[in-house]
């Protein structure tokens, strides 16, 4: 089964996926922006400031999802010793960092008109900041260390320690009194968000996911070429 993950099998698939995403991305982006900025109604309490949600929430979700994937693949790499997972993680980490930073910045821009402050050291905001730091440490291991074996060990340890922060982020709004509102969208149970806002949010999430997938594929393709370049003379 793991032979499927070999670069020779994956490379043609990556090229096809990049082409496919490029062909549909702008259409979905325009639909998403039209919904988010024009068609979706203002909130009865927050007014038009609620539109920041359409970039803030998908950014935060992707930031969290990327770290979850990194943790999972780090554990798998420990058990199964599949080097490809290391390259996948290396390609995902910058995307996770980007979206975590965007979630913090857009959250700050949303906080000023709704809470009256750019920043507060409350549980949700602080745990998101901690996630950003974990991403920075994780990426630094690739930049600062030279030994590949050591990089895998150190980065996996950072990922596993950092994963403790993930449930803290998720449940911080329930465990502590925070400025941040509790979750409006639940996988299990009913969501408190109106369908007229849910639809733009889902379209914008799709836009962000497609963008993240595109960057991941390009970075992973770069990694494959880098390895093949190293090996070319050995063959």
């Amino acid at each position: 089964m793991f032979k499927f993950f070999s670069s020779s099998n994956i490379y043609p698939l990556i090229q096809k996926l990049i082409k496919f995403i490029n062909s549909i991305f702008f259409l979905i982006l325009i639909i998403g922006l039209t919904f988010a900025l024009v068609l979706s109604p203002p909130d009865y309490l927050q007014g038009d400031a609620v539109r920041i949600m359409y970039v803030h929430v998908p950014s935060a979700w992707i930031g969290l999802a990327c770290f979850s994937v990194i943790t999972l693949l780090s554990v798998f790499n420990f058990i199964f010793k599949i080097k490809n997972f290391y390259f996948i993680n290396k390609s995902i980490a910058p995307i996770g960092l980007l979206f975590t930073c965007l979630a913090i910045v857009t959250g700050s821009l949303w906080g000023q008109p709704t809470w009256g402050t750019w920043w507060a050291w409350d549980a949700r905001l602080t745990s998101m900041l901690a996630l950003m730091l974990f991403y920075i440490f994780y990426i630094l291991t690739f930049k600062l260390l030279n030994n590949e074996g050591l990089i895998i060990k150190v980065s996996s340890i950072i990922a596993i320690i950092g994963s403790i922060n993930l449930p803290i982020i998720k449940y911080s709004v329930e465990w502590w009194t925070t400025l941040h509102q509790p979750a409006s969208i639940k996988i299990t149970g009913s969501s408190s968000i109106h369908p007229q806002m849910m639809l733009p949010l889902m379209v914008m999430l799709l836009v962000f996911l497609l963008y993240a997938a595109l960057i991941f594929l390009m970075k992973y393709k770069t990694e494959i070429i880098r390895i093949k370049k190293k090996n070319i003379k050995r063959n």
Partner: protein
Amino acid sequence: MILNLITMNGYGLYVWLSFSVVFISCVIVYFKTKKTLKKYEQEFLTELQTLTLVEKNKALESSKVAQAILATSSKVN
């Protein structure tokens, strides 16, 4: 309506700034990633050119990735 879209009932600065920050960051990361990818593809092809014909054929036969990169660059060129 257009004025309303720009001002967002007084929240325009925050809304447009949020969307702009996201858009600009994403565009920068996209072009930076694309540039790095092109650089590595070019370096790979340069490396391939330094090989002898026999080595080159051997490398191409054994690597689907090398074939794909060469095919892509042929299309571009």
